[in-house]
C-alpha cells in the first residue's frame, strides 16, 4: 500500500515528499525532458505522487503484430494467455496501410497519474519504493473510475472481466508466473519476448508527448539490413533497402 497521506480540507497531515513537477498524461503543460528532477518540496497541502522509476518505450513502426507481448504479459501475470487481459494492447489492422495499421499502446507511467488519482480506495497507487503505478487487486472495488480516467485511447487501465478487478502495467513488478525479477530494476516480459526489440525500457521520464513514448528503435541493430527503414519517419529507405527482386 502506498505510503501516501492525503491532506484534506479537514487538515490531516501529509508528509513532505520529493516529487516531480510537471503535467503528464494529457499532453499539455510542461515538458520534462530526460532528467529526473528531485528535491522540490511543496507545501504540506499538496498531494504528492512519486515518479515511476521506469517507463516502457515502443517503436510502433517496428512492431510485427505478432502479439507475443500481449500473450506473454497475461501469462506472466495470471498463468493464462489472453489478449484481453494483457496490460499492453497492440492495435492491429491487418488490412491497414503502414505505418498507421498498428499502434502499440503501453501504459506511460504518467508523472501525473490520473488513474491513481481517480481511485477511491488507493488500490491503484504508486509503489512507494519504485513509483510504479500499479493495482493492489485486493483493494479494488471495481468502480472502474481508473479506466475512465486514463486520458489515452484505448485506456491503459483494463477491467479484468475474468478475475474481476482493474489492472494495469506494473512493469512486471508482480509476475507470479515468471521466473525473473521485474520492476524498474528488473526485466519486463514484453520487452524480453518481443522478437524485434520493438519495446525498450528507460529510467528517464520521457518527454510527455506521443513521440516521447513511441521512439525509433531501428537504428542500432540489423533492422536496416533486412530492408526496412531505419529513419525516424519509418518511410525513408536507403538505396540498399530498395530491393525489387524477391528471394526464394
Amino acid at each position, binding site marked *: 500500500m502506498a505510503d501516501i497521506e492525503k491532506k484534506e480540507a479537514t487538515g490531516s497531515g501529509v508528509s513532505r515528499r520529493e516529487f516531480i513537477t510537471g503535467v503528464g498524461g494529457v499532453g499539455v503543460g510542461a515538458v520534462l525532458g530526460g532528467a529526473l528532477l528531485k528535491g522540490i518540496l511543496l507545501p504540506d497541502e499538496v498531494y504528492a505522487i512519486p515518479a515511476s522509476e521506469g517507463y516502457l518505450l515502443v517503436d510502433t513502426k517496428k512492431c510485427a503484430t505478432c502479439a*507475443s507481448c500481449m500473450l506473454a504479459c497475461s501469462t506472466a501475470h495470471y*498463468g493464462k*494467455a489472453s489478449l484481453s487481459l494483457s496490460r499492453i494492447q497492440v492495435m492491429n489492422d*491487418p488490412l491497414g496501410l503502414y505505418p498507421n495499421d498498428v499502434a502499440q499502446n503501453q501504459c506511460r507511467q504518467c508523472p501525473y497519474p490520473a488513474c491513481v488519482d481517480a481511485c477511491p480506495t488507493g488500490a491503484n497507487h504508486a509503489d512507494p519504493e519504485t513509483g510504479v503505478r500499479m493495482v493492489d487487486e485486493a483493494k479494488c472495488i471495481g468502480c472502474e473510475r481508473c479506466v475512465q480516467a486514463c486520458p489515452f485511447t484505448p485506456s491503459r487501465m483494463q477491467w479484468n472481466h475474468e478475475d474481476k478487478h482493474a489492472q494495469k502495467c506494473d512493469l512486471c513488478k508482480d509476475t507470479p508466473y515468471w521466473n525473473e525479477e521485474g520492476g524498474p530494476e528488473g526485466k519486463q*516480459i514484453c520487452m524480453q519476448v518481443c522478437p524485434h526489440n520493438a519495446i525498450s525500457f528507460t529510467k528517464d521520464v520521457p518527454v510527455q508527448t506521443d513521440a516521447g513514448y513511441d521512439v525509433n528503435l531501428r537504428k542500432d541493430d*540489423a533492422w536496416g539490413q533486412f530492408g526496412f527503414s531505419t529513419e525516424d519517419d519509418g518511410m525513408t529507405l536507403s538505396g540498399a533497402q530498395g530491393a525489387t527482386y524477391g*528471394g526464394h
Partner: protein
Amino acid sequence: MADGYAPRILKVDLTTREVEALDTEDYKDWGGGVGMGAKLFWDLVEDKTLTDAFDPRNVVSIGGGAFAGTPVPSAARSAVAGLGAFGYPVNWFTTSNFGGRFSAMLKLAGWQMVTVVGKADSPVWIDIRDDKVEIRDAAESGDGLWGLDAHETQKAIYEIHGADGTWRSTGASRDSGRTTQHPAVLTIGLAGENMTRIASLIHDGGSGAGQGGFGGVFGSKNLKAISVIGTGSIEVADAAMVLDARLWAADQYGYQVDGLKSFAISNPCQVFSGMPSASTGFGSPARPEGCMNCHKSCHGVRAASGLGNGSHCYDTQIWQVPEKTATGAVTGETQGRLADLMQALSINALALDTAGFWLGKLNEKGLVGTGKLVDTDIFEKYTFGTYEWAEEMLHRMAEKREVGELLAEGPARAAEKIGRLEEDVKSGDLPLQEWGYPHHYDGRTEVAWGLGSLLSSRDINAHDFNWICMWTVTLHTLYGLPMPVEAEEMANIIAKKTPPYNDPMIIDMSDEGMYSESMAKLVSWHTAYYMYYKNSMGLCDWAYADFVNPYGENLEGLTGIAEPKYVEGVTGRVEPLEDGIKRGTRIWNLMRALYILEGRHRDQEVYGDYMYEVPSMPVPGYMLMSTPQCVPVFENGEWSYKMVAGRMCDRQKTEDWKSIYYEFEGWDPASGWPRRSTLEGMDMGFVADELEAAGKLGA
C-alpha cells in the same frame, strides 16, 4: 489440469442452422488441427465412401492445436480438414493450413475447433463472439457480404464489430469480455462462391489455406465467412515453464536482431533462426508481419504502398519471371497487386502458375486461340507475362468465364476435358506429380517430398527436410559458398534428432537410397512429425523442424529438445519426441483409413508419368521447377552433396519401395491397407472394424 486446450468444439449444422458444443476432451488425443479434424470427420460422416467435396455431407473442420495462443513460438497455425475439391481423380479427405490469428482467437473464444456440416439454403456467415454464435445472413438481404472480395468481406465484418482499436465489449454486462482487437476472419472471394476447385480460404491480408480446394467447399455450403473474436484466456499446465521455454528457444536459437548469425545464404532455409525480410514490400517502406506468438515474423510485410499485405513467398513470386520476360523488369506494383488480387478472389496461386505454364506450352503447339482446342482469346488480347494477362486470367477463373470455365476445374480435370491429360502429364508440359496437384518439390530428386505426397492426398508442403537437405545445399552449391555443415555431419545431426530410428541413412538421396528402407523410415518419421507437431499441435512449417541452426551449439537446432518442452509446459504431459512420433503415426493411420474407405489402393499410388519418363531438369519460368537440386548422398562408402538433376524415378523400383514402406508401417503390401494388428496396437480397433466391414482391412 489445464492443458492449453479450449473446452469445446463448435459444431455448426448449416442445413438445420443449429449449433452444438462438442467436448474437446473426447478429441484431445488427436492433438488438434488435422488430427482432431480427421477424427471429427470420422465421427460425423456416416458414409465414408463419400468423395464429392461439394456434397453437403462433407464435414470441414478448422482449428489449431494445444499450442495456439500460448507463448510457444511459431505455434499458431490453423488447419483445415475435410474432403478437398481439388483432388483428382478423387476428392480425397485432405488438409490445408494457414497462419495469422485465427486458431488463437478461436481458442480465446472458448472453442478448440469449428466444424461445419451441411449446407445453408442461402448465403450465410458464422459470427462467433466468445460463447455466442450466430449464423447470419450474408446475402444482400442481410449483411451484404456475398459478392464482396475476401478483403472487402473482412473490412465489412470489422465494421460490423466496430473494431477500431478502442475497447469494446462482446456483451451487455459489465463482466462480458472486452477487446481492442479486430476479429479473426476466414473467408472466400468469388472463386469460392462460384465453387471453383481452385479456390482458397483467406484470412487477414495474405494468410491462406491455398491447396485442397476448400474455398469451393465453403461456396458449396453457401458459407461466406467464419469470424471469431475471443476475449477469454487459455490456461496451460505450467505457465512459468512455457514462458521459460519461449525465451530459451527464441534467445538461444532464434534470430537476434542485435547479433545476427546466419548461414552463408540465409532465409528461409534457416528455419527457426530465419529472419524477417522486406523483400515482399518490393522497395516500399514496410513493417514485417508476424503470425500470432511467432518469434520470427516471416509472414510477408505491411507496406506503405498498401499492396500485398501479408502475402509472401510463392504468392509474391510466381509472376516475377513472366513479367521480366515480357516487360524486361520485375515491378513491385505488379507482384503486390497480383498477390492482392489472388487473395481477393481467393484463388490458389499454383492454379495461376500452372495455367500459365501449361497454356503456354499448348500455345507453342498452336493449340490455343479463338476456335482452337483451348478456345480462348486471352493470348490474343493480352500479352502473357504482363499484369493484365494475369489479372484477366484470374477474373476468368473466378467467374468461370471463357477459358476460366475450363481452368476452374483444376488443371487435371481441365486437361482431361480436352483430351490432353495423358500426353501432357507424360511429357511434363502439365507437371501434375500426384492427385492432380501441380509439381511443388521433386520426387525425382528430393525423393521424400514426392513419396510422402504420393501416399497422402496432396502435395505435402512440409519443408522439414526440404529447407536443410535441399535448399540449403542447393543454394550454397550454386553460389559457391561454404556449407554450414558437410553431408556426413548433417546426416549425424539429423539422425540424432529423429528418434526412434536415429538412422543417418535416412537422408541418403542417392540413386540407391531413394528406394531403400531408410527412405521408408524417413517418410514414416516425416509424416508422423508433421502430422502431429505441425498439422495438429500447430507448429509452423517455416520454423520447424529445426535441424541445423547457426546459433545452436555445434550448429544443432532445437528439434528434439524444444518440442517436448512445449508439450510439457502446455499440456503437463511428459512426452519425449518418439512418443510424439507415435501420436503422429496414429493420426496418419486414421487419415489413411479415410482414403481407403474412399477407394484408395496401392495401384492408384502412381506418380504423374513425367516423373518416370522425363529427367528432372530446371525449367526456367516455371516457379516450382526453377532450380537444379543438390542433395545429400551416400555413395561409395562416403557422404557428399550432389546435384541430382537429370534423374527420373524408376517405375518398378518405386513400386518395390512402396511395398517396403507399407510393410514398414504395418500395412498389407498387396493393397497398402493397414492390418488389424497395427491398428489395434495404436488403440484403433474401431478403425479396423470399419475397414473390415468394408472389406478393406490389410491381410
